[in-house]
C-alpha cells in the first residue's frame, strides 16, 4: 500500500526491470526536466542580475566615497567636482521620500477607491470602461506627465499652496514663508500621484476581481450593504494584494526621474514646507547632473543611485515582512 512502483524492492530487483521501465517510463518526463531547468535558470538569473547591479554600483561609487571630505549620509550640499569634494545625500533622500510620501497619501486611497468602484459598485460596462481608462493612464510616458505638471498643473496649484498656508499654516508641512508657490515638492508629489494612480488601481482591481464569489455572497446574504460586504469579505481577502499594489506604486514614485526633474527646482535643501520651491530627488538629480559631471561627480551620482537601490530594496523587503506576518490568520488563498 502506498509505495510507488519505483520504490518497490521486488520490482527494482526484478529481472524484467527494463520491461517494466518501458511501461512505467522514467521517473520524470523530459518536458518536466526541461521546464524545471528553464524556470530555475530564470530565477537564478534574476538573483545574478541583482547582485551584478549592486556590485556595479558599489564598485563605481567607491572612488567618490574615498574622495568625499564630508559625511556622505548627512551632508545636504552636492559639490563632488570641487577640490576638496563635498557632497552628501541628505537633501536627496529627504526630497525623494517626501515627494513619494505625498504621492502615496494622495494616490493610494483614490487608487483603491477606483478599483472598488469598478469592481463592486459600477454597472459592469461602466466599470470595465473606467478600468480601461485608468489602465491607459499607465501607458502615458512620464515626460508627458512632467510637461503637463510644469505647464498646466503648476500655475494652478499656487492657489492651493496659498490656501493651505492660510488655513493650515500652523502645520509646518503646509506653511509657506517664501511667498513663492512654484517648483515645489507639493507639485512634484501631485504629478507623481497621478502617475502612480493607475498602478495602484489596476493591481488592486486584479485582486478584487479574484475575491471568491462565495465570500461576497456570504456577506450580502447576511444583509450587508455594499460597503459592509467590502469590509467583511473583500478587504481581508485582498489586503496582501493591496499592500503589494501600494508598494509597486511606491517603487515607481521613488524611482521616477524625468517628471520630477522637470517640475522641481533642484535645490539641495531640507525643508518640510511642501508648497515652497525646492527639493530634489535621487533620480532627478542623477538625470540633471550626469552630463556635466566630472569623474568624481559621476562616481558620486552612482553612489546616490546605490542608496536609491537600497531604499527600494528595503521598501520591498518591509512590505514582504508585513505580508508574511499578516498571512498567519488570513488563510487568504482559501
Amino acid at each position: 500500500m502506498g509505495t510507488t512502483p519505483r520504490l518497490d524492492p521486488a520490482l527494482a530487483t526484478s529481472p524484467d526491470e527494463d520491461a517494466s521501465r518501458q511501461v512505467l517510463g522514467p521517473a520524470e518526463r523530459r518536458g518536466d526536466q526541461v521546464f524545471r531547468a528553464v524556470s530555475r535558470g530564470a530565477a537564478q538569473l534574476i538573483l545574478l542580475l541583482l547582485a551584478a547591479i549592486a556590485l556595479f554600483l558599489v564598485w563605481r561609487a567607491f572612488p567618490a566615497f574615498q574622495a568625499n571630505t564630508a559625511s556622505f549620509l548627512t551632508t545636504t550640499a552636492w559639490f563632488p567636482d570641487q577640490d576638496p569634494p563635498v557632497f552628501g545625500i541628505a537633501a536627496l533622500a529627504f526630497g525623494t521620500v517626501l515627494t513619494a510620501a505625498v504621492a502615496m497619501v494622495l494616490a493610494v486611497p483614490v487608487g483603491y477607491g477606483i478599483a472598488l468602484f469598478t469592481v463592486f459598485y459600477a454597472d459592469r460596462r461602466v466599470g470595465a470602461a473606467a478600468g480601461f481608462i485608468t489602465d491607459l493612464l499607465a501607458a502615458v510616458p512620464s515626460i508627458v506627465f512632467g510637461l503637463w505638471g510644469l505647464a498646466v498643473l503648476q500655475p494652478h496649484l499656487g492657489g492651493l499652496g496659498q490656501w493651505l498656508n492660510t488655513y493650515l499654516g500652523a502645520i509646518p508641512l503646509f506653511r509657506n514663508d517664501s511667498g513663492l508657490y512654484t517648483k515645489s515638492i507639493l507639485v512634484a508629489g501631485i504629478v507623481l500621484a497621478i502617475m502612480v494612480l493607475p498602478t495602484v488601481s489596476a493591481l488592486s482591481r486584479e485582486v478584487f476581481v479574484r475575491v471568491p464569489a462565495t465570500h461576497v455572497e456570504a456577506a450580502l446574504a447576511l444583509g450587508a450593504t455594499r460597503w459592509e460586504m467590502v469590509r467583511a469579505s473583500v478587504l481581508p481577502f485582498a489586503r496582501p494584494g493591496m499592500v503589494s499594489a501600494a508598494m509597486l506604486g511606491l517603487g515607481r514614485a521613488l524611482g521616477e526621474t524625468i517628471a520630477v526633474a522637470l517640475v522641481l527646482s533642484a535645490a539641495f535643501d531640507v525643508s518640510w514646507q511642501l508648497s515652497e520651491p525646492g527639493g530634489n530627488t535621487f533620480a532627478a538629480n542623477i538625470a540633471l547632473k550626469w552630463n556635466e559631471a566630472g569623474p568624481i561627480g559621476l562616481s558620486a551620482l552612482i553612489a546616490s543611485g546605490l542608496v536609491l537601490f537600497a531604499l527600494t530594496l528595503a521598501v520591498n523587503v518591509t512590505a514582504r515582512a508585513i505580508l508574511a506576518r499578516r498571512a498567519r490568520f488570513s488563510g487568504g488563498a482559501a
Partner: protein
Amino acid sequence: MTTAPVQAAPATVARTARTADRQPGARLVTRDLSACYGGFVAVRDVNLVIEPRAVTALIGPSGCGKSTVLRTLNRMHEVAPGAGVSGSVHLNGQDLYAPEVDPVNVRRTVGMVFQRPNPFPTMSVYENVVAGLRLGGTRRRRREHDDVVEEALRGAHLWHEVKDRLRRPGASLSGGQQQRLCIARAIAVRPAVLLMDEPCSALDPISTLAIEQLLASLRTDYTIVIVTHNMQQAARVSDTTAFFNVTEPGGPGRLVETGPTARMFTAPADPATADYLGGRFG
C-alpha cells in the same frame, strides 16, 4: 421582464427580525414568479406557498431553476450580473419586490446557507457568528454578543465542539463544522426564514446527518426552504415538497407539482414527478 432595482429606497421590511419579539417563521407566497439571467429565462411562472414552521424542499433535475427560485426569496438572485425578476414574493403579505423595499433588509429577514460552507476566512469562530449582528452599525455590549454566540452555536448543534476554540479561525474547522458555523451565523440574527441551497452536497455522510438533525430542531422556530438534489434527503427532512422540471429542452424550469412530502413520494399527481422520484430520470 422587468429588472429588479439593485438599490432601493427606505426600509419597510423592518429590522425587527433582529429583535427578540419576532414572530417565529413567516409565510412566503410567490405569484407568477419568473427569473432570468440576461436573456435566458431560468424559471417561469412559479406559484408557490411556503408555510411557516415547516421545511419545504425544492427538488428537481439540474437546470430546473430550483436554486434560482430559492435565491429570489431573499433577493440574492439580482446580485448576479444581468439577473432580473418578475412577479412577486410576499413575506407575511408584504411584497419583497415592492420598489420601496431595500434588498439589504430583505436579506436580514430571510437568511441563507450556501452549498459550499463559506465562513469569513479571516474571522474567528466567534466573529463569524456575530458578523451579521455587527452589520447596520448597531453596537451591542460584549455580554449580549456572548449570549447570542452561545445560543446560535447551540442552535446549530456546534457549541460543544467549538466552545473551547471560539477564537480560532472559522476556516480551521472541518467542512461539516464550517457548514454548521454558517447556519449559526445565519440564525444569530434571528431571521424569519432560513434558505438552504443544497447545504449538504459538499459534506460527508456524518456531517449530513448532523445537519439533517439540526433541520428537525430548527423547523419549530423557522420557515425553512431547502434545495436538494438528494430525494432521500427531501423525504427525510421536509414537510412539503415542490418538484421543478424543465418541460421543453432549453426552456425555462417550471414548478410541476407541490404537496405534502408523504403524498408526493407515494401518490404524485403528475407522471413526471413519479418518474423523477422513481429514479427514471434526473
